């Protein structure tokens, strides 16, 4: 009973801002506000970039997670700390660091620029890079936890039956960690979708190319709050749909998060 009070306060704290958004939403003029090209363009861009960032995070993050979980090397703790750094780093700082590394005059970016005349800032690819930087650690940490707790005996059994390492990974380990992988991918996608600081600092802000939903909301707030509230509603709806779709996997007992 004693726990009920702080629990209720915690829940109310999380619920009330969302309720306020729903209460103050311009329901009647919603269609009009959203059909303005800026909102839908930003939504499409956001969805595309978040998905691309998640794909990249899975491609690079799962092997990284496997490395962190299974390989015993001195200094692996340091490696893990570096991987987790974007989780604690303020996103704007992350964006600034990306700019210093991969910008036109960046430590590494200037080679690409002088060779190909191409630089990541102000491109949609730059948005994906910024989002991957902040979101990949979520996937890595989730999958690493799952690999650690996966039953090694099953893998060893596969090995004794003559399965190659790759076959063991794809037929035994991967299915075992799949619930956590999906949960991690959802977290990663949600984080990428909501990314603001790194995107605006590294990729810039231009409608259709780099102006994702959070940037569009920020823009709209300065001229007219109503479209901003409408866009926020859309983001909220997307979040609810995604969470509902993965509800079972999320809450299935035994899925290590």
């Amino acid at each position, binding site marked *: 009973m004693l726990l009920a009070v702080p629990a209720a306060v915690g829940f109310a704290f999380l619920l009330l801002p969302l309720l306020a958004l729903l209460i103050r939403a311009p329901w009647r003029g919603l269609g009009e506000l959203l059909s303005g090209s800026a909102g839908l363009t930003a939504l499409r861009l956001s969805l595309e970039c978040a998905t691309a960032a998640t794909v990249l995070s899975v491609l690079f993050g799962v092997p990284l997670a496997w490395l962190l979980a299974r390989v015993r090397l001195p200094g692996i703790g340091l490696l893990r700390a570096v991987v987790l750094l974007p989780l604690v780093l303020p996103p704007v700082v992350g964006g600034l660091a990306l700019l210093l590394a991969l*910008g036109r005059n960046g430590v590494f970016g200037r080679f690409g620029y002088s060779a190909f005349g191409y630089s990541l800032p*102000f491109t949609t690819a730059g948005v994906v890079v910024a989002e991957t930087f902040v979101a990949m650690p979520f996937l890595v940490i989730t999958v690493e936890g799952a690999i650690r707790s996966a039953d090694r005996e099953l893998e060893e059994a596969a090995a004794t039956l003559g399965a190659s390492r790759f076959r063991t990974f794809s037929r035994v380990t991967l299915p075992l960690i799949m619930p956590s992988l999906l949960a991690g991918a959802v977290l990663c996608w949600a984080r990428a979708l909501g990314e603001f600081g790194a995107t605006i600092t590294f990729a*810039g802000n*231009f409608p259709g190319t780099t102006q994702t939903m959070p940037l569009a909301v920020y823009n709209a707030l*300065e001229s007219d709050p109503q479209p901003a509230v409408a866009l926020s509603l859309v983001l909220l709806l997307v979040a609810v749909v995604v969470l509902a779709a993965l509800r079972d996997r999320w809450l299935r007992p035994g899925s290590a998060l």
Partner: protein
Amino acid sequence: MRSTRSALLAAAALAALVGTAGCGSSTPARSGGATSASDSAGVHGTVTVLAAASLTEAFGTLASQFEAAHPGATVKLSFGASSALAQQIIAGAPADVFASAATKNMQQVITAGGASSSSNFVANVMEIAVPPKNPAHVGQLSDLARPGVKVALCQAQVPCGATARAVFDKAGMKVTPVTEEADVKSTLSKVETGEVDAGVVYVTDVRSAGSKVTGVPIPASVNASTEYPIATLSKAANAAGAQAFVAYVLSPAGRAVLAADGFEKP
């Protein structure tokens, strides 16, 4: 004899009364605002000033001078895009003074009841800022429309963005930027880091950036200007301090600081 003495006494008493009354009514004349010691007793506490980003250097100087003249008073400065600041004030952000880079944003605040009136204290015009090495060889305004030139502008609702677009309209040009920044200092920093080939900012920003950027002037025939209004806010917690600060900005000493930074007369 008695009547003369009492008449003399009465006259003396009257003279003394008039004399002391005369002494009490005069007050020392107020100078420009920076040096009068008599009003420092009334100006104390914190004065919160929300000002356009382009006023960063000038208001920093003015705030130091104001604090030196009014010991006991502290000026808290917060800079940002005038459009963002106006929205914050309308939403109830606690502040005493608002200095905007465009009359439009001040009008939004006045319409919402945040201020009753304002005074225009300076004006500003635009200039092109390029990185020192000028990688895209931008030498004139028309170069900004060249394909492949990366241009940074302020967002359209921000004064520097609106004024830059007014310049393009006057020149009959169409410029597509690669990024639209939240305020003029962000635009300037994109140029300083060399990420863009050019940015359209105020002449005062090019001046304040010193050797970090090179300025390419815009011909006066197509240049656009914006007026800066300043106002004490209706809900100011420190109304006396707010009025004193605004008075200082509008004073000859204050105007001299602003003119030295490159601002024009309103």
